[in-house]
């Protein structure tokens, strides 16, 4: 990071004046806990005893045979709650508790971050309110119920596109209104500084584990790591500890119905620099600066922004960003379920789809790690409906 809160030219703190003191307070609190071994220890304990870390790095014998390379899955689908999101929410909820905050608020798209916040809130005794676009409350109804079971209140957002972007808008409006006692627990590496840095740090446990596990199993780091990119937290979480290694890093965005149709969420592949939700980063916007509606089969990727660190990594060409379309994703969802007995989240299926589509790029000794950011139980009903199964 160069200037305060900047990744190259990206990042910053573009928020209304009321939130500045809260961000400064958060920066300060985060500095304190990063220097505090007790915090680290408390987090480690929750990760091991509650979240189920470390997660396995599973060798996929069937898929490897079929594709002709050595494929591993980093099994974030096995984290308690069903996705990588708990890595972040446990860290931030512990921080909120240290800061003496009385209430957690969060936004959610697929519902996975909302569920992970509900889990952390219940475990630490903090009340949780989750903003969720009305469209998403319908396509991820199971997750709404899961949040409610764990005592969280889900607030459907009926403004704008009624998806993740608008859920973040509403969460920001709530925060600005209750800034003194409320902690905004953001779910990805987006938003104003220090969120992108802090969420990346909490998610880096994925890459730290994967690096050790791969060295143990293969005696070296992988040749390629593939992760899906919505806001970018699971991707940066697995990439970050490998940034100074020699290997290929691939971030897969939601190509939706195809970049040419305009119905996608491929921020890095099709966007241009701008400011949304407090950070300067790539953004899907029109010629005048209005943020564009997005589409993805995966609610968790259906977002017009992206974390500022990814924007820097794209410009530096350290990470290759690309897309796969909805249909590729459905095929990958089916493929992994059938071949390995693992049902991936539709978000994670984007990373799987990339490897399936580009299998001919890999040699038989190439080691490819796919970040399986979540499990697909939440998507089963929607996929069944798309397949005409009722």
């Amino acid at each position: 990071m160069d200037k305060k809160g900047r990744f190259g030219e990206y990042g910053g703190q573009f928020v209304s004046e009321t939130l500045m003191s809260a961000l400064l307070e958060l920066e300060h609190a985060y500095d304190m806990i990063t220097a505090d071994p007790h915090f680290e220890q408390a987090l480690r304990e929750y990760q091991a005893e509650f979240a189920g870390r470390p997660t396995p790095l599973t060798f996929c014998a069937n898929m490897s045979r079929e594709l002709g390379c050595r494929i591993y899955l980093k099994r974030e689908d096995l984290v308690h709650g069903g996705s990588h999101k708990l890595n972040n929410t446990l860290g931030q909820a512990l921080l909120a508790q240290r800061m003496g905050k009385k209430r957690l608020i969060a936004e959610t798209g697929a519902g996975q971050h909302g569920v992970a916040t509900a889990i952390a809130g219940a475990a630490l005794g903090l009340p949780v309110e989750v903003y969720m676009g009305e469209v998403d409350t319908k396509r991820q109804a199971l997750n709404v119920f899961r949040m409610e079971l764990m005592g969280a209140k889900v607030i459907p957002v009926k403004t704008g596109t009624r998806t993740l972007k608008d859920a973040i808008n509403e969460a920001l409006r709530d925060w600005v209104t209750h800034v003194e006692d409320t902690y905004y627990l953001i779910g990805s590496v987006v938003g104003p500084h220090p969120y992108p840095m802090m969420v990346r740090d909490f998610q880096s446990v994925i890459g730290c584990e994967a690096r050790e596990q791969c060295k143990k199993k293969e005696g070296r780091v992988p040749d390629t790591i593939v992760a899906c990119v919505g806001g970018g937290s699971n991707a940066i979480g697995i990439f970050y500890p490998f940034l100074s290694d020699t290997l290929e890093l691939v971030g897969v965005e939601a190509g939706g119905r195809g970049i040419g149709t305009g119905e996608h969420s491929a921020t890095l592949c099709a966007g241009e620099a701008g400011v949304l939700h407090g950070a300067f980063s790539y953004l899907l916007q029109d010629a005048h600066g209005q943020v564009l509606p997005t589409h993805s089969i995966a609610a968790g990727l259906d977002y017009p922004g992206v974390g500022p660190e990814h924007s820097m990594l794209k410009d530096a060409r350290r990470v290759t960003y690309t897309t796969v379309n909805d249909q590729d994703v459905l095929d990958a969802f089916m493929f992994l379920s059938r071949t390995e007995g693992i049902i991936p989240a539709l978000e994670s299926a984007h990373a799987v789809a990339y490897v399936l589509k580009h299998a001919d790029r890999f040699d038989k000794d190439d080691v490819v790690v796919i970040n399986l950011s979540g499990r697909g139980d939440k998507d089963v009903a929607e996929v069944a409906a798309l397949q005409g199964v009722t």
Partner: protein
Amino acid sequence: MSRIDRVFQRNGQTTFIGFAVAGDPDRDTSARVAHALIDGGTDILELGVPFSDPVADGKTIQKADERAIAAGTTPDTVFSLVREIRAYSAVPIVLLTYYNMVYRRGVERFYREAHEAGVDGILIADMPVEESAEVVEIARTYEIDPIFLVTRTTSPERMDEIVRRARGFLYLVSVLGVTGARDRVPDEALALLHRVRTHTALPLALGFGISAPEHVKTCAEAGADGVIVGSAIVSIVEKNAGNIPLMEQELKRYVARMKAAGVRDR
């Protein structure tokens, strides 16, 4: 001395700053809204540049932004409106916008075109003083007053930094929250007014939630130099969209009543 400075120099009344969203519900009606606000006695006209994601705004202004965008409003529309209003009146015009609208056009181009159209001040709702260096410099080049927000949560150190860069007036946010009409002016708002007074001689205008003559009176008695009224005006526009002559009449009457409440008798 800028046009905004001169307005605040006039004695005997609390400066009334009336806000409407440019292009709400469409460009031509919006021009008539602006003219009616001026005819009613608005001292400074504040125009919102509609944005898809106005996170500092409550429901009333969000919906106005949506209407304006649906009607095809762009920054070009806004500047053409400003030129039309400028031909009609010499009232200072302040734009309220979000950073992405400025960045996308190019900061320098946005300020140059604003200046050429006759804009006097610009407030960027999601640009804290920490991110404002480039913008403030360009604003100065084009003689546009950079307007900044100050809130209850602004620390004394940051307040000094804001005061150093701000020109025209300071926009004091009377509540923690988003824009929208509220029942009363909270005591914290008046406490903020007194606190900021110790930091600067700039005129201080209170906004967020001010909608009734009693609110103006409270602010005036507490020594505010101005009041900013947005959502209440936008609601009048929304309610009377089907009857524009009535809308104009209501707007004029409303501004006149609010102004009368701000007359200081000393």
